[in-house]
């Protein structure tokens, strides 16, 4: 570990204080998630208690049952998974090709393009909801599967919005692959596409994983587009909409909200745990470049 050799220079009481602080901060940061899962398992009477306790003596699955009995909930879940999955794969492939182009070729307008990708990252996508709404409406009349009320209307914008950042991040990974390797591959008679997919692609795969975290989050978290573009065909809604059902004028169903939130958070948690190590090293590598 690079810092462990530096660490002994810190005097012991300070390091102990630092470690206690770290543990307390970890507990505070984890508390909202703990409270979410705990509340999801609390029985109905206990969750409405005005003396909330940080534990429960009688865990119950009632809230989860209400969530899954809600019409179409499973379908919303699969819709969310499908949207996020397509966005991750499509933007990774498209970004890999584009990042290779700007990292390994010299051509006219290369710098202009890079600046444009940088500027594109700054575009507030929320501001584009209005034109995107009309674009999806118009596309729906000519291209089936992408108009309003379709999953395509959620997939397409997120591919576009995650691309600039993905290209920018992957560029660092592609650049880090030694040029000599490419020359050697050509000398060995590899074709350009063979080099691209069988040599370069596996080498930058850790970078693709780190990048995919961002596109996955952007698609899985989407609330605004789901709310604005899925108006009538509710069978094409996604999870955030299923969550809103439990907010009621006569009093929120907090058990249901927390259970639905738990179900919605778990896939992302699993995804993060899976890519965790690559994410940390990936950020270090990409950002440094």
């Amino acid at each position: 570990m690079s810092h462990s050799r530096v660490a002994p220079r810190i005097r012991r009481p300070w390091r102990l204080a630092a470690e206690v602080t770290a543990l307390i901060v970890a507990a505070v940061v984890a508390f909202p998630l703990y409270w979410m899962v705990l509340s999801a398992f609390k029985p109905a009477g206990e969750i409405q208690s005005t003396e909330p306790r940080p534990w429960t003596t009688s865990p119950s699955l009632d809230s989860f049952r209400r969530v899954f009995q809600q019409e179409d909930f499973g379908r919303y879940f699969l819709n969310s998974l499908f949207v996020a999955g397509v966005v991750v794969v499509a933007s990774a492939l498209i970004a890999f090709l584009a990042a290779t182009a700007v990292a390994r070729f010299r051509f006219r307008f290369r710098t202009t393009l890079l600046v444009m990708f940088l500027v594109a990252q700054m575009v507030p996508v929320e501001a584009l909801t209005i034109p995107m709404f009309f674009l999806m409406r118009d596309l729906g009349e000519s291209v089936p599967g992408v108009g309003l009320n379709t999953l395509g209307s959620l997939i397409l914008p997120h591919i576009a919005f995650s691309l600039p950042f993905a290209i920018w991040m992957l560029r660092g990974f592609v650049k880090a692959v030694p040029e000599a390797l490419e020359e050697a591959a050509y000398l060995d008679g590899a074709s350009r596409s063979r080099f691209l997919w069988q040599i370069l692609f596996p080498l930058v795969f850790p970078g693709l994983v780190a990048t995919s975290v961002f596109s996955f989050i952007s698609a899985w978290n989407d609330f605004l587009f789901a709310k604005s573009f899925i108006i009538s065909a509710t069978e094409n809604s996604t999870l955030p909409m299923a969550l809103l059902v439990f907010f009621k004028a006569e009093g929120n169903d907090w058990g249901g909200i927390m259970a639905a939130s738990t179900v919605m958070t778990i896939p992302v948690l699993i995804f993060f745990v899976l890519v965790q190590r690559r994410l940390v090293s990936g950020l270090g590598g990409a950002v440094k470049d």
Partner: protein
Amino acid sequence: MTPGTTQHARRAPAAAGRSRPGPAAPAGGRATKGRGRGSWTPWLYLAPALVVLGGLLVYPIYQLGLISFLEYTQAQVSGGEPTTFQGFANYAELFGDGEFWNVVVATLLFAAVCVVSTLAVGCALAVLLTRVRAIPRLALMLAALGAWATPAITGSTVWVFLFDADFGPVNKVLVWFGLSGFEDYSWTYDRYSAFALVLFEVVWCSFPFVMVTVYAGIRAIPTEVLEAAALDGASTWRIWRTVMAPMLRPILVVVTIQSIIWDFKVFTQIYVMTDGGGIARQNMVLNVYAYQKAFASSQYSLGSAIGVVMLLILLAVTLVYLRLLRRQGEEL
């Protein structure tokens, strides 16, 4: 994987990046890059990205600008009335509205407080991570990854529940600490406490990116450099100022800009936590304001004009970013 290989893998890209301006790189690099000169291969690789970005980013931006100059309400959307060119009338209406300026100021202040808090918390915890042994480090890292992974909408609902006037634990704890004013206190009723509540959630879900990135950056600084400085008798402060800070600056620029971008366009948190912009619209930010104008009251032109204003503000931020990169001598 042994710790040794992990470390090697982690450092490889960074080391390659740093050696880029070295004398060997251009000589070896130009030969391969020459293969692409005048060729259409890079454009083939770029084609899918350019098609997607052109159709789903550039065109909508053009449309946004266009609609902001038209009269575009429910009547025009349904085709009942022809669209008419309004010139700057929509902007004049917007700028003449006191509420708009109120929202602009609120958005800028709220984003600024979010960015500063996120960076302060993220950087402080990144430094803390380098000072502790494996178990506290793992605990903090996992907790932060959990907060990061939480979708904005579920994070928002959980934080609202934590601060709920009747069923939330936070008020009870505050009362227990002797702050009796928090007995049944409604955080979303008052403008500033509602913004504070959203701020807590935003910092909670966005500090992990800063922490992890800055931590990865600190780890990428070769130990030998720090040890050499220490052997030369440099103080901790001096090592930070002359060795670590310059090496971390590119990372700090990136996390700052990303934080500005994210915090300036917070939508889900405000919308969910304050129920669409707060009591009497006291917690509006530009995003929610544009959404309400366009989709709740069908004033698409005004909503688009607000979008254009947001776009221009973020463009200004981008220009500052580009200048910072230039000054660092970053080669694009």
